[in-house]
């Protein structure tokens, strides 16, 4: 299931390299989401942040999300990348590119894949504020007691729950 491609890394994300514009002549729609580092969080001024991750699960999960998006939405191409390490304001943390025959499935797959990464990938954001303080941003619980009781197969990419940090 998992290929050898690395989807997580410290190098700056290069959108152009992911577009694959000339490789899918059957595709008329390209959807792109790029998430950048914001300079504020809950009223505090953010100076920079550090993303850390548990890479063994992340690499497998991102590959699975790409594969599932292809079958679920019938899109021809999808690339999901997430950066780790120290990022400055405005730098890209996540990029998702989708190519499909038409825009509807390209948009839908792109949104679904980004949500799946945000909710399911073990990645953590530590924000450093201009007042010198820092904190790990409170996020989405991967552990769900209800899931443990009821699900035969955990699907973090498709689960539903309440959380505040998924804007």
């Amino acid at each position, binding site marked *: 299931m*998992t290929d050898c491609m690395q989807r997580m890394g410290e190098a700056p994300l290069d959108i152009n390299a992911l577009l694959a514009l000339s490789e899918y002549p059957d595709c008329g729609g390209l959807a792109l989401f790029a*998430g950048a580092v914001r300079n504020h969080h809950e009223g505090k001024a953010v100076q920079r942040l550090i*993303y*850390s*991750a*548990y890479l*063994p*699960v992340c*690499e*497998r999960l991102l590959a699975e999300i790409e594969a599932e998006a292809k079958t679920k939405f019938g899109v021809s191409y999808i690339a999901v990348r*997430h950066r780790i390490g120290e990022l400055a304001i405005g730098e890209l*943390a*996540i990029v998702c590119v989708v190519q499909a025959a038409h825009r509807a499935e390209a948009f839908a797959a792109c949104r679904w894949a*980004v949500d799946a*990464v*945000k*909710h*399911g*990938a*073990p*990645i*953590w*954001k*530590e924000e450093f504020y201009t007042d010198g303080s820092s904190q*790990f*941003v*409170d*996020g*989405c*619980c*991967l*552990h769900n007691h209800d899931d*443990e009781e009821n699900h035969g197969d*955990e699907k*973090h990419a498709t689960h539903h729950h309440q*959380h505040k*940090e*998924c804007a």
Partner: protein
Amino acid sequence: MNAENRTVTFELLAGIERQAGCRYLAVQVTSAATVGDALSALQRAYPKLHDAIERCACAVGDAIVRRQAALPVDSPIVLLPPVSGG
């Protein structure tokens, strides 16, 4: 899977690593059969981390494992606190 006395090692990441002040913690368990049993032992040994442990998912290697999963033989149990990627 049985009642042998053994050491279970946990790897702590992100916020829970910061809270604990260390990357690894180990506990002796006598009758732990599952990941959940070992987590309970860790909570008893480190009561200050009780609630943070409760909110963590667990991974072994590249797989997320449930509380009911059998204890891994040699690998540490990786504690994954709530995530905030993207």
